[in-house]
């Protein structure tokens, strides 16, 4: 065996809340002390409640991070996340090490960061990182009525590169007044993509996406139409970050499987979202139903 002392790379430990602010009616922005601030966009951490009625972790993707901290943006969807919403600065919180395979760095010059709802935070992380690598990043994000992270996107990639789809027409005038440089459209992210991406362009581009399953399915279909060489390969390299109800959140329980088609053999296998994902090559994901 190796001489180096064993060090587990999946660990659970206690840390401290730096801030926990409400962004929308049900979305919160949590910053915690975290020694390993260097994360890959798409990676997540497990948050633990330490309660007999909430034993399982809540996996939350990392939206941002720096020297000694990470930022986790989460929606209140049940009792567990409701308890998180009451955390105050200085409170102790149990957390895991960074987990999962993130978005891989774009090999192409242009990056489309496409997110929906509470799926936007990991996409913001990817956008920020790719912009820092000198890529041209266009963000296309969609929300029902209450957008998040728009100022952050504008700061990271330039407001002129941010597009926001809204499903509730009544809120758009107020949003346009508040964010004059960001373009809003009624509809969903595909509505915007159809408007801004010329059908005849053939430049290769990277697309990092996370959001509700119908959105991811729609993107999978959308990129298929761009096949400049007519060889079944889209000009968009699509990467999808998936969500699935998890048990352990680190690859030991086989709870959170998704169906992935092997590009070589065509065989569909069920694999763990937490262990082999959450980010998968877009064309390999076989959605349920």
């Amino acid at each position, binding site marked *: 065996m190796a001489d180096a002392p064993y060090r587990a790379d999946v660990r659970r430990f206690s840390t401290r809340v730096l801030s926990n602010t409400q962004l929308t009616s049900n979305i919160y922005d949590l910053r915690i002390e975290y020694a390993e601030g260097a994360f890959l966009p798409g990676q997540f951490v497990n948050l633990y409640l330490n309660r007999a009625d909430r034993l399982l*972790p809540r996996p939350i993707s990392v939206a941002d991070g720096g020297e000694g901290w990470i930022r986790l943006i989460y929606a209140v969807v049940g009792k567990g996340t409701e308890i998180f919403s009451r955390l105050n600065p200085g409170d102790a919180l149990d957390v895991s090490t960074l987990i999962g395979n993130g978005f891989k760095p774009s090999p192409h010059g242009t990056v489309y960061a496409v997110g929906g709802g509470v799926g936007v935070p990991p996409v913001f992380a990817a956008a920020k990182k790719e912009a820092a690598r000198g890529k041209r990043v266009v963000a296309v994000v969609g929300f029902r009525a209450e957008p998040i992270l728009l100022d952050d996107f504008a700061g990271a990639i330039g407001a002129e590169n941010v597009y926001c789809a809204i499903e509730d027409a009544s809120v758009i005038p107020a949003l346009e007044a508040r964010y004059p440089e960001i373009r809003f459209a009624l509809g969903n992210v595909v509505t915007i993509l159809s408007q801004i991406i010329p059908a005849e362009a053939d430049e290769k581009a990277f697309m990092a996406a996370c959001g509700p399953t119908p959105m991811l399915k729609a993107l999978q279909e959308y990129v298929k139409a761009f096949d400049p060489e007519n060889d079944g390969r889209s000009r968009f390299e699509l990467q999808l970050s998936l969500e699935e109800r998890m*048990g352990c959140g680190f690859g030991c*329980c086989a709870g959170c*499987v998704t169906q992935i088609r092997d590009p070589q053999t065509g065989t569909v296998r069920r694999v763990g979202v937490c262990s082999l994902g959450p980010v998968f090559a877009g064309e390999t994901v076989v959605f*349920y139903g």
Partner: protein
Amino acid sequence: MGNDAEMKKNTDRPAAGLDMGVEIAGVKWKNPITTASGTFTLRTMRCYEISRLGAVTTKGIATVPWAGNPTPRIAETYGGMLNAVGLQNIGMEAWIRDELPVLRAHEGLPVIANIVGRTTDEYAEVAARLSETDVDMLELNISCPNVKEGGIAFGTAVEGVFDTTAAVRKATRKPLIVKLSPNVTRIVDMAKAAADAGADALSLINTLLGMKIDVYRRRVVLANKTGGLSGPGIHPVAVRMVYEVRRAVGLPIIGMGGVMSGEDAAEMILAGADAVAVGTAALIRPDAPVRILEELEACMNKMGIASIRELKSALIE
């Protein structure tokens, strides 16, 4: 909470002079802690040093790959969780090729292969094939509540337990552990049937059949509808069943069911278990099995007990 603090202090002290070794059906384990089937994968090696375990127990292995159930497969409950994974596995040939050598590389770590089947013949086929390998022990899973055929269908009737155990016994000379279901009226009858059919050891309990409904969505949470309940909420059921089986059957017992701490492990052994498996705890705290081992040592020090053998006979009645 006071107990926890004391426990922590003791954990830091080396467990000098403790004899933690056990022997299960002729196989020596350096300590009584193993993993509960379905909660250990090769990824566990990223959570703690698995060579510190007394033995390692794999996820269920079938003749061919099984896809398992659709998702959601997991639901949270008070004091535990429901799972309906449905024995997803890569099949025996892939397991022998890809996983067994990785486990075998850990010297002094017995490997227990958990085997599953849809029919008695399939169980026997897996057992026969694994008998050609250097696996140390087989654990017969006739108690999984999440598959339509096999699993619990065999484990909840005396004839089913007897016939499956007998068929596998015929197919292998490896030490054979039979894993019992708690979803029965009298678990002692099942234990006796397994013993009569040639089991070398028993493990208990598998999960309890349960269901969870999301009130506001008005839907059953698990895609499979029902699932297996595990976690600290089932621990007293497990302790009771280990206690009953110990008094009815002489075979070694691997006790499991909601073991979350060293004290829970000690409780299992006091009830009559020879070894203890940690399952759900390892899904909640990645290094739970080795943590529980340390806590068990601390607990024994506190009790003034020097060996597992002594602990096993220490219950005052």
